[in-house]
């Protein structure tokens, strides 16, 4: 009886692996709607981000009409940072999430929290910003200095050049892992999820903010029109780079649906996997806990 049950579970796992592996292969060899080799994909994505880095934040504001700030606020409030946290923000080049995490920890309410908790010198807050693209990191470092409040010289903010699929951090070292608008650009999503699982401590949380799929009937058509007509035009006008923004819009459509991505996170052994749709699905925040 037990053997039959185990065999059934194994068959289920193999079948779901087969179904998802064909999808993952598609993702690894797709650059928007084009088909490319796996090795080529990361180079192409790298070129996109080197090109958009200087205007990245301005374009975000224009494309999302400033809403991306609210989405990132929501992500960080879901994360609920605490003093002494070790947090890793992957593909966080320009630092938006990292700044919000630090400001949340250093805010007045949090200082009250610190009074309540025992002072432990080992528990120093550290936020690591990891990005594969040096151009994005240097924009982030510049922002840190411009933002003031000591973020430029803060020891609690560490900029690391690295690959989401092969992180250089130790196992079980992070309390939180966030990836905002980055996982879509990773060649092998399952490797990034496995790495996230590896570096998180027990009880640590994985949070992903990503552009996702809209199913609401009329709104979907409006959103598609906006995405395919207006966004590449803004990209051409503001950043002089239509192709990068065409890639952006196409890669959103190729990315798995909310349910599929939640399944992938669960397959990476995360628990309490949930997702929250914002603006009817334009953006989704997926979360999971490592136990």
């Amino acid at each position, binding site marked *: 009886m037990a053997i039959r049950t185990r065999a*059934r*579970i194994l*068959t*289920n796992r193999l*079948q779901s692996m087969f179904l998802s592996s064909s999808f993952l292969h598609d993702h690894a060899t797709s650059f928007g709607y084009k088909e490319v080799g796996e090795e080529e994909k990361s180079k192409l994505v790298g070129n996109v981000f080197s090109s958009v880095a200087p205007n990245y934040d301005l374009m975000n504001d224009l494309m999302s009409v400033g*809403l991306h700030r*609210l*989405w990132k606020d*929501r992500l960080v409030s*879901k*994360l*609920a940072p*605490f003093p002494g*946290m070790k947090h890793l923000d992957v593909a966080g080049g320009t630092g938006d999430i990292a700044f919000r995490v630090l400001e949340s920890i250093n805010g007045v309410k949090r200082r009250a*929290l610190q009074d*309540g*908790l025992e002072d432990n010198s080992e528990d120093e807050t550290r936020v690591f910003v990891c990005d594969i693209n040096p151009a994005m990191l240097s924009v982030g470092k510049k922002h840190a200095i411009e933002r003031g409040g000591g973020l430029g010289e803060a020891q609690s903010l560490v900029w690391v050049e690295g690959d989401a699929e092969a992180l250089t951090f130790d196992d079980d070292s992070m*309390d*939180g892992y966030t990836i905002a608008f980055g996982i879509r650009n990773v060649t092998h999503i399952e490797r990034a999820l496995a790495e996230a699982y590896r570096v*998180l*401590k*027990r*009880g*640590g*949380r994985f949070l992903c903010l990503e552009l996702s799929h809209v199913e609401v009937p009329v709104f979907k058509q409006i959103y598609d029109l906006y995405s395919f007509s207006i966004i590449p035009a803004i990209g051409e006008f503001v950043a002089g780079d239509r192709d990068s923004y065409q890639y952006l819009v196409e890669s959103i459509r190729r990315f798995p649906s*909310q*349910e599929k991505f*939640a*399944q992938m996170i*669960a397959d990476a052994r995360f*628990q*309490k*996997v*949930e*997702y*929250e*749709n*914002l*603006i*009817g699905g334009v*953006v989704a925040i997926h*979360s999971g*806990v490592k*136990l």
Partner: protein
Amino acid sequence: MPLSTLYRPFSTKPHTNHKNQKEAEGDKRRQRDCRREYRDEQACVLDAAISHVVRLGWSEEAMICGAKDVGLSPSIVGSFARKEAALVEYFMDLCLQKLADKIESGLDLPDLILSQRISKIVRTRLEMQIPYISKWHQALSIQAQPVNISTSLKQRAILVDEIWDAAGDQSMDINWYVKRTVLGGIYSATEVYMLTDHSPGSFLSMNPLIFA
């Protein structure tokens, strides 16, 4: 705040339309096992957090300390829905369980008349809150928040039902509702009275007027 809708893929409909029934059942079993593990860990954290409540209140700080005590990253506290309410509700469930255990192990109820039986059970239950009385007003205000009130009312309804059952209530008509509603009101009034009753031992004398 942008419009948002929260989904828990594994607690609602099955997540895929193409698997046959046997595979769906296997999936459901795995998901149930995973969910149970998360619930167990959450219960451990909340249990450990209760020992910090007197010092830190019904708050995130207490839960963070609880998580550290059981060896989990305090990040897990961020995943609890309605954080402080989770702690208060856990405590209420814990007290209900302890009350049921005490009733089962014998409170000498059959020797007493009805009002004395109820008085004894209510006293037993309220005594469990005495160690946290300095912070109980905070728990009451958390339970009264609109987002939490439906769960707290449900817990109190279960509690008064348990008390009446233990006191030997056999009614099957409108009295069933009347008795529970009245006891709910009396219980809450006594609970609030406890908050302002600072003299040691006086609560234990249980003002008989309450049950007149």
